[in-house]
């Protein structure tokens, strides 16, 4: 039996159409886009066609798209670049306690440089309250960075409302849309977004390539210094094949968004209903409705996430966990803790993220495998027997 891959929020396989689009640029069309000869011009043309497609995908203009090495670089450039370029205007940045570490750790580094950062709390579903954002805004606030949808629990933030608040106060607004892209219709003008991070490999594109949308007129410094590529926004010879792959991936995502969303929602709801109906002391994390179509995130009380993941892996099921043991730290997921979930529960989380390759049969198999795996681990757990004693009283 093959692997049932349920970790699409971590990465996705390259779609055959994307691979086909990329291949010529690894071999016969290998030109450096900065050159003047025919071969180079062909590469440059492909680069600009991809830029146009990415721009269309988010309702932007082509010259507002800068290609990067992925979501992490885009987030770093947005935060560091805006903070440094706008230091004269102010010193304060607002973000949330549930951001990806590419944003959170960059914010922490900026604090060490002397910037002041507010980390907005979230409610029990992982939602940012717009009222909290309004309260946090100061005269010296220069940047708001709030993710479009959360990578762990899949909660979708009220980006349009946040964008309006940012616009009213004339504050630059960045959103990390790495997880939302392909599942939610993105429109930087509708949502008042000034900077937006994208990554190809979450969208059936290749790893190592992404983009940062920079609204025309936004004051931002570059991270890298070097040649004139990307109009100096991002020096370094362009990853032409990767960028072509990103262009094809967003094109595909645009075409398939409706169909993909409906299919994933159906499978996800089947999975959630089966897990919550079939296993005691299981709960769903994140928002019941405002969640990404492919995201199912659970906590199984009395067991630890890594044991669960390894047990599922031996059954050919690939998932992920916010467990401390899988992240190499002693603290469980910062997202779950920010949602008010206690440490002991946060250790027992399981994230299953669905994608194009998954079928109803996959979900049925997970629903058959999961209960005995959870039972085996609970039978070993001193917390479970203690709890069983309590409930018998």
């Amino acid at each position, binding site marked *: 039996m093959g692997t049932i891959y349920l970790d699409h929020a971590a990465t996705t396989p390259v779609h055959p159409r994307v691979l086909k689009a990329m291949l010529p640029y690894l071999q016969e069309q290998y030109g450096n886009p900065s050159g003047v000869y025919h071969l180079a011009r062909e590469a440059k043309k492909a680069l600009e066609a991809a830029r146009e497609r990415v721009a269309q995908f988010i309702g932007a203009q082509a010259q507002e798209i800068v290609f990067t090495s992925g979501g992490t670089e885009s987030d770093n450039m947005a935060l560091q670049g805006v903070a440094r370029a706008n230091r004269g205007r102010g010193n304060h940045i607002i973000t949330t306690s549930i951001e990806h570490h590419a944003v959170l750790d960059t914010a922490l580094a900026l604090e060490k440089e002397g910037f002041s950062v507010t980390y907005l709390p979230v409610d029990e579903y992982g939602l940012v309250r717009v009222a909290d954002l309004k309260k946090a805004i100061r005269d010296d606030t220069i940047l708001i960075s709030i993710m479009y949808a959360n990578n762990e629990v899949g909660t979708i933030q009220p980006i349009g409302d946040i964008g309006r608040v940012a616009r009213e106060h004339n504050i630059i607004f960045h959103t990390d849309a790495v997880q939302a892209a392909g599942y939610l219709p993105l429109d930087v003008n509708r949502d008042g977004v000034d900077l937006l991070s994208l990554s190809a490999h979450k969208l059936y594109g290749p790893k190592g390539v992404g983009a940062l949308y920079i609204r025309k007129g936004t004051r931002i410094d570059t991270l890298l210094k070097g040649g004139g590529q990307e109009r100096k926004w991002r020096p370094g010879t362009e990853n032409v094949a990767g960028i072509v792959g990103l262009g094809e991936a967003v094109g595909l995502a645009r075409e398939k968004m409706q169909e993909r969303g409906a299919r994933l929602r159906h499978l996800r709801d089947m999975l959630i209903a089966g897990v919550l109906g079939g296993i005691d002391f299981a709960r769903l994390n994140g928002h019941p409705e405002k969640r990404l179509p492919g995201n199912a995130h659970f906590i199984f009380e*009395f*067991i*630890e*996430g*890594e*044991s669960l993941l*390894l047990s599922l892996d*031996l059954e050919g099921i690939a998932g992920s966990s916010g*467990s*401390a*043991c899988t992240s*190499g730290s*002693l603290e*469980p997921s910062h997202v779950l803790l920010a949602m008010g979930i206690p*440490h*002991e529960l946060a*250790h027992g989380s399981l994230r299953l993220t669905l994608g194009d390759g998954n079928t109803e049969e996959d979900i049925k198999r997970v629903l058959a495998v999961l209960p005995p795996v959870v039972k085996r681990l609970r*039978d*070993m*757990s*001193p*917390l*479970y*027997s203690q709890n069983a004693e309590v409930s018998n009283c």
Partner: protein
Amino acid sequence: MYSAKVMEFFLNPKNIGEIENPDGVGEVGNPRCGDIMRITIKVEDDHIVDVKFKTFGCAAAIATSSMITEMAVGKTIKEALELTNRSVADALDGLPPIKMHCSNLAADALHAAIRDYQKRSH
């Protein structure tokens, strides 16, 4: 990232459970950290004759728990007190560095159970 032996002990742990009317009980770790081990022992003529464990934790925590129960059975109290977290990890062909301090508590749990036994018998 785990040795074959860790995986083997994680998948087929020995001596799961709790001894009824144990001579000593030891519990270490806490749910906040993500690892709890509870070890119960039976002692006869200064020898550990039975050991059982219950563990909440990662694969390393479960494998080390199982390993300590097998290492401790038949040992005198003095010998059992000489077992260390390090010797348990070595018997499992090592643990990933990050696990050495967070999930490698089995000898501590056994020692806690022995101390409990010693307290009770004095």
